[in-house]
Structures are given as C-alpha cells and as structure tokens.
C-alpha cells in the first residue's frame, strides 16, 4: 500500500528542515512551490523521455554536489563535515524530481526512469509508478537530523504524529492513535539517547584499535642506497616547479628533511620533534622565523601533494611561507616542514635568506661517527689534515678531496670484502652518487670535529623555456651536507657538479613528450585547484555549472506544452469514509494474520470466499451489515450496528477457541 501524505505535511517537513539546517532561503520557496501545486491550474505535458531526463539532471546535480564536496574535502578535511553537508543538502538535491512530479501531467515517475537498463523495459517493475512524496518526507527528516539538538526529536515527533493520525487505519479512532504515538515517543526518547552513547563508545574503541594497527611509524628515517647493488634508475618525471624572484640566479637546494645519525646505510633524525606552526594573516601565511634584516629572497614553488599531506621542500633559511592553504603545518627542530590537510596542488611562495637559520644548534649527535667506519674516517681525516682547522678550510679540503679523486656514478657495486659500503666508496671504487658524497662529506667533517648533518631534497637547475620555470625531476632528488659554520647551518654540496649531466644522459628519448603531458596535467591541476586560492567564492564554478544546467532545464520546460490542470481531487487518505469504525474489521485483521493479506484489488466477499470463510450464514449476515454500513448512503441503524458488534465478538471468540484447538476457521 502506498503511503499518501496529508496535504501540507511535506511543506511542514521542508520548513522543519530549513529551520534545523539554517537553509531557510531555499526551504521557504520549496515549501511554497509544493503547496501551491493543487491551486495552480496548468501542468506540463511531459512525456516519458522528458521525465527520464529530469532524473538524469537530478543525478547530474548529485554528481556536481559530490565533486564539489570532494573538492572541499581535499581543501579542508575532515571528511565527516562534508558528509554532513551532503546529508543536509539531500532535500535540495532531490527537489527537482518532486517538483516535476507535482507539476507534470503524468503525476508520477516510473521505476524504469531511475535505471538506464529499465528505461525501455515493459516489465511490471519498470512500469510501476514511483511516488516520491513519502521518500522525500523521510529525506527531509533525515537531513533535518544532521544537527543534533533538543528540538529535533520534538519536531520529528510532531510531524510523524501528523502523518500517523492522517494515515491511521479507518477502524481506529484518533485518540487511540494519539496515545500509541505518545507511548512510542516516550519509549524512543531514552532509547535514542542510549543509542547515541553506544555509538560514541563504539567510535572510541574503534579509533583506539585503528591507531594501534594502521598509523604508520615515524617516517623520518632516510634509507640510502649505500650498500645496494646495481644501478640507480630514477625517472624524469617533473615533480616540482620553481619560479625565482628577481636577482636570484640559482641553482637551489630545496630541503625536504635533515638527519643527524648514520648507521649502516641509514640516516635517521634522532631526538627530533615537530612543533605546530600558527598561520598568520589570511590563514595562508606561515611565519617560520623573524624576518631577517637583509638578503631576503623569494621563490615560488609548485608541487603536488598526495592526499593533501607531505613534506615541503624549502631552501635553507626559509623564514616565511605564503599562499599555503593547508590546515596544519609542522616543523621539526631539524628543519623538516610537514604539511597536512592541504589541497592536491600547492603553489606557495617562500621567503628565505641565506643568513637565516632555524635548525637546532649542533648537539653531540652531530659529531657522532658510526662505530664501524670510525677508524677509516678518522684515518682519512688525519690524512687530509682536517683536525683543528676552521670549518671553511676543512670543508674546502673535503670538497677538494672528493672532487679531485672521486667521480660521479650511478652504478652500485658490491662492497668489498670486510669493508662497509661507505668504506668501499672511500677506499676502493671512489665512485658513487650523491648519497655517498653527502654521507662521506658529513662524516669526514664530523671526524674533524665539525658538526655536520645530512640533508635530502631537490637540486633545481633545469630551466624549461616552455613554461618559463625551473623544474626538478624525480632524478634531481639530491642529498647533501649541512655544515655548522659561522654560527649557523649552511649547505655544503660535495657531489661533483657534473652529476646533473650524468643524470640527464640517462633520460629517455620520450622525455619531451612526457614533459608535455606532465605540463598539461599540471595545467589541469592548476585549474582544478585554483579555487583554493579563493575564499568563500571558491565554488563559483560549480554553482555556475549547476545554475546553467538548471536554466537549460527551465527553458526546455517553458517551451513545453502546458495543459490545463483540473484541480486535484482531495486526497483519499485524508477522507474518513462512513463505516470506518465497523467491528467487522477485527475479523479482517484476524483472518489476515491467518490467511495472509488481501490483495488491494480483491473485493471483500471474493476474498472471504477464496479463503473459505464466506459461505456460512453468520458470515453472510455480517458481510451484509458491514457493507450496508460502509456503502449504503442511508447507513446502518444503531440496533443493527449493535448486532453486528455482538456477532463479530461471538465469531472472534469461537475463532480463538478453534485456533487453540489447531482447527482453522
């Protein structure tokens, strides 16, 4: 049986929704539009195709809304906020089909309209009429429930009371329905509160369990290729774009992270801790340091951020980040900057000064040598006469040593017997890639008593005329040394400068095509994420698209033939027909539980005959009275009503005893 809503209920539900969610502005005209429908005398003559198109358009609105919310989510997690927004919008997104249903001649959609596969089907399912009123009513209540405040239960209770009073079985008088609804509400109240508590407890348990098992360990640990065998193969995919400010010739070393402890091919950042930064200005400006008095330079860096989280490469001495729309920014005492809750593409500005430095001052760790290579390193340091030299001199000697006697290579040879990978590099092969050079330089300087750290990031020197920017490819990922000199940390790159040439020789012949593709992709991403640069107006594009589509639909509707609508007859469900209180319905209920329900189109007498109870004289008499009560405009006299009630009671008693005796009817 389809549920027919009493007039006005849907509008009331819409207003309730508007009140709860603060969406008054759409709710008012929507409710008005629905309530005006019976009074408006024309209807659109929409054919089957047009109705299907309305469903398509509605689906498109959903897709638009989902994309919009997904975009917002990428900008501003968490996801739950946006799911709630979607819930809140449901009545808005479903309103179009409902309004069309009210204002078209067909009066209802078909199940077939909802599914492409059923559009042309003649099956019973596809042809079944689909009245949207009741589902829409439920959606309104659901959407109104997004904000959990005391008024909600009362409102939903009143609306449901209205519905139940109107749709109650005809044999029940309204006080009974009212009492039952009130009792149900009184039971539901504590139950709903308990359910809420239970949900919270469940959430807590689950999140604890989830953190135990799935959150990754501290990622600040760099495993080098020292000790690996083979050849380093790095892709030429562009990962970062850099636009220098005026008077900044480059090249640039953009640091992702710094490490202070080496052991067996792994650099670790020990005793590191992250601190939260607070944004200033418009919320997209992050101050790392006090503004230095001199030598401040600017860079614009553009890179993709996977899942909105990642390390931000910045040059040493960065003191401020601009245009950075991330939710959280953390910086470690070793200078690593971690962004989270950001968009998929960042386009941020960096203010830096070669003289600024925020990293923690040297500690014992920055002088520690790995035990296995300690002897070799100290011997080499002695050979180079690094001891007691000022840092500048020591660094120059290390640089000269590495540059003069070592060459850059991407081959990864097997370590010699009884030597570690680093010793093999230093003593035998004298060839390696940047990780070797950076590690060797750092440890040699430490052996000389000069604090040094190991840094990773990108070396940016390739200029792309096509885009007018400097780019860093994945193979430009680099490692270098940080050296403590003149009271601050400074970059010290001991890798032979021809390393980029060696790397570039490796590049594939399709590199330029790939670059073009990457560029197009980048442009698309820029367009896609450009709204992150805006504030409130960031969804203008989507609103524009939705508005355009709505305008097209409206125009098409306007062009359609309108037909005069005979004002709709009063809804059936709201009418209480005479004889609704007939006691005979008690027998119908009793028989329904026994023999199954009566099909809606089957007459009472026919049904009773079919299930084998219509033939007795007693039953025939009762049917006669009942039908007279129900269908004779002259009605049934009071004594006859009384006799019917008595006969029904008698029949029910007999029926009950027969039931106990396992006999049917």
């Amino acid at each position, binding site marked *: *049986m389809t549920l027919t809503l009493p007039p006005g209920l849907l509008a009331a539900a819409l207003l309730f929704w508007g009140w709860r969610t603060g969406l008054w502005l759409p709710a008012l005209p929507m409710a008005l539009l629905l309530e005006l429908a019976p009074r408006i005398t024309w209807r659109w003559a929409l054919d089957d195709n047009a109705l299907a198109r309305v469903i398509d358009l509605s689906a498109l609105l959903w897709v638009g809304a989902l994309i919009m919310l997904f975009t917002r989510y990428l900008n501003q997690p968490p996801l739950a906020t946006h799911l709630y927004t979607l819930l809140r919008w449901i009545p808005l997104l479903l309103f179009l089909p409902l309004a069309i249903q009210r204002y078209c001649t067909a*009066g209802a959609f078909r199940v077939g309209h909802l599914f492409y596969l059923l559009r042309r089907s*003649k099956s019973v399912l596809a*042809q079944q009429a689909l009245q949207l009123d009741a589902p829409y009513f439920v959606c309104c209540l659901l959407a109104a429930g997004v904000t959990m405040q005391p008024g909600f239960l009362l409102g939903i209770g009143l609306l449901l009371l209205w519905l139940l009073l109107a749709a109650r079985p005809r044999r029940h008088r309204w006080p009974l329905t009212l009492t039952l609804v009130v009792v149900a509400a009184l039971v539901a109240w504590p139950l709903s509160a308990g359910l809420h508590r239970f949900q919270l407890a469940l959430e807590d348990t689950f999140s604890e369990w989830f953190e135990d098992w799935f959150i990754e360990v501290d990622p600040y640990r760099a495993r080098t290729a020292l000790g690996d065998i083979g050849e380093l193969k790095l892709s030429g995919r562009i990962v970062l774009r850099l636009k220098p400010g005026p008077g900044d010739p480059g090249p640039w070393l953009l640091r992702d992270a710094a490490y202070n402890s080496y052991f067996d091919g792994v650099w670790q950042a020990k005793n590191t801790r992250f601190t939260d930064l607070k944004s200033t200005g418009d919320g997209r400006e992050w101050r790392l340091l006090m503004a230095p008095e001199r030598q401040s330079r600017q860079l614009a860096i553009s890179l993709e951020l996977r899942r909105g989280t990642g390390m931000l490469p910045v040059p040493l001495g960065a003191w401020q980040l601009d245009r950075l729309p991330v939710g959280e920014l953390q910086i470690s005492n070793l200078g690593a900057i971690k962004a989270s809750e950001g968009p998929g593409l960042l386009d941020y500005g960096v203010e830096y000064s070669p003289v600024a430095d925020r990293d923690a001052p040297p500690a014992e760790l920055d002088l520690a040598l790995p035990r296995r290579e300690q002897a070799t390193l100290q011997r080499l340091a002695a050979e180079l006469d690094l001891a007691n030299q000022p840092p500048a001199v020591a660094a120059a000697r290390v640089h000269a040593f590495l540059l003069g006697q070592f060459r850059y290579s991407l081959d990864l040879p097997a370590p010699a017997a009884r030597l570690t990978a680093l010793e093999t590099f230093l003593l035998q092969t004298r060839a390696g890639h940047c990780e070797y050079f950076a590690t060797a330089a750092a440890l040699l300087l430490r052996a000389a008593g000069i604090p040094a750290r190991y840094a990773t990031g990108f070396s940016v020197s390739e200029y792309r005329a096509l885009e007018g920017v400097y780019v860093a490819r994945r193979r430009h990922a680099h490692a270098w040394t940080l050296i403590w000199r003149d009271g601050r940390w400074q970059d010290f790159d001991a890798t032979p400068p021809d390393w980029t040439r060696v790397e570039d020789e490796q590049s594939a012949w399709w590199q330029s095509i790939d670059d073009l593709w990457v560029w197009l992709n980048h442009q698309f991403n820029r367009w896609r994420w450009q709204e992150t640069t805006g504030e409130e107006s960031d969804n203008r594009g989507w609103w524009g698209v939705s508005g355009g589509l709505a305008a097209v639909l409206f125009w098409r509707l306007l062009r359609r033939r309108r037909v005069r609508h005979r004002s709709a007859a009063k809804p*059936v469900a709201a009418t209480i*027909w*005479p004889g609704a209180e007939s006691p005979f319905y008690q027998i*119908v209920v009793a028989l329904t539980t026994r023999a199954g329900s*009566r*099909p*809606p*189109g*089957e*007459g*009472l*007498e*026919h*049904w009773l005959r079919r299930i084998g109870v219509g033939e007795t004289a007693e039953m025939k008499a009762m049917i006669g009275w009942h*039908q*007279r009560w*129900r*269908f*004779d*405009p*002259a009605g049934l006299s009071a004594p006859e009503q009384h006799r019917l009630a008595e006969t029904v009671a008698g029949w029910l008693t007999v029926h009950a005893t027969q039931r106990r005796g396992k006999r049917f009817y």
Partner: protein
Amino acid sequence: MSREIYQTLLNHLETVMIGQRRTIRWLLAAFVAGGHVLLEDLPGTGKTTLAKAFACSLTLEFQRIQFTPDLLPSDILGVSIFDPQRQEFRLHRGPAFTEVLLADEINRASPRTQAALLEAMGERQISLDGERHELGEWFFVIATQNPIEFHGAYPLPEAQMDRFALRFNLGYPDVAGEMALLTAQRERHPLEALRPCVDRAALVDLRRAAAAIRISEEVSRYLVELVAATRKAPGVAMGASPRASLALMKIARSLALFDGLEFVTPDQVQELATAVLAHRLKLDPQARFSGLTAEAVVGDVLRQVPVPV
C-alpha cells in the same frame, strides 16, 4: 418485487439459453440500465437465439438485420418513396424502427452503414429527410460480431464502440449444459414454446427500481478511479470515456437490484468492469503486437486500484 421480476425473467430465459445464467444476468443488467450490448463470439454459440428469446419474453417488438458489405443506411433506417397516386413522398420505415434490434455481424457492413445506427443507439431517435422519429424508451440493440472473420470485416469505429454499454462473449456451454441443450431440443426448439412472461408495466417497475438504487460517494470514487486508471495504464493510447463511468454506474445499480440490495457495493462495480471498459480502450500498436489485450489492461487495473472494503 423487482427482484422477483428479474428472477422470473432469468428462469424463463434459461429454459432456452441453458447454462447461460451469467450471460442472461448481464444482458438484463444492460437492458435495465438502458444500454446496448455487443456480443462477440464464435458462430453457433446462441447469440441470435438469446436475442430472440429475450425479445419474446419481454413482449417487445423484435427485428433482425443481417449486416453485409453492400447493406445501405436506407436498408436499416428506411427510405422515402414517391407515391405517384398521392403525389407525395411516403416513408417506408426500415427495420431499425423496432424495440429489440438484433444487428447480426455488425462489422460486416461498411462504416457508413454502421454509422447509421449511431444516432438511433445514442439518442433513441432517427432523423430521416429532416424529420425526427422517436424510437421509444425500450429501444435496445443487441449486436453481434464474429471475432475470427477478419476478411471482409470493418472494425467498428471507436465512437460506435463507445455506444455499447457492454461487450462480452457467451462462450461455449460446459458438457452438462451442452447435454441439456441436446435434450431440450430433441423434439422442437424451446424458443417455439416460449411465451412472454412479464408485461411492460413490470419492465417500467424494474427500471424505476434500478434508478432508486443508492450509490455511496466512496463507491463512486472507486468506480471513477477504475475508469481513470485505464487512461494512465501502460500500452493504452485511448482510455475509457466518462460515458463509460456512467454506463458502469448504471449497470452496477442494475446488478445491485438483481442481488436484492438497495445500494451498490464494489463487488457489483467489479463484476462488469471488464465488459463495460475493455471494448472502449484503444491500445498502442506496439503493445497490441506484443500480445497485450484490452481485457488484460482492465484486469490489471482491477488488481491495482485498491477496492474499498
């Protein structure tokens, strides 16, 4: 009282139409409701016998027209012929000037001839040479058509179809019925022995009683919902008209009278809904070729529209 008249008629006609109580009931319902009947059945099922027996029992004047492709409107309605002696046109009335008219194989005549009956059936009058001739309140058409003979047949236009209150078929009698038929006709046809059993005053009473049958608003609404549902049913190009609603109401009243009730229940509406509505529906060609029938559409409607209980 009225119910007794009905019972008398029913029993009387059943001596001729053995095992056809249902058919007789429906025919009488249509007659009391003032509607015409279209019988659609195979040859030899007793259509003509039924019509003859009916006219004979009711003391009504009876005429029969065998429709053929060359039948002209004047063959039905009559024609004015110049009388040279009197120097004037004299109207020779056709067979349509009667009370019970059996139009046998009506779909064999051309649409022009079929249309000649329209006015007579709709308004119980015939206009000839600019003159109106009343046909009387008992004018009742029983038309027959053979469903299988498509060759040389002109399907009745929708307007004509709509003027028939009922369309149903007699169907073959069951074995016992057919045996009884043989027994009854061993010596002579029972029709020959059939005598009138009610007079016209009784018929007037019957019609008056039917008109006094009450119908509640709820049952009327159910009836209208049924008719309206045929207009929205899938595969239907043209649904039943308001004339169908009227016919269904009148016929349901007659049935209520026959059932001894003073009011109409939904059961009476359901009983003849298919016979009243199906022949007025025009199906989409696509639906028709896919095997959908108008009877099936009305059957679906009856199953789907909730019946008041």
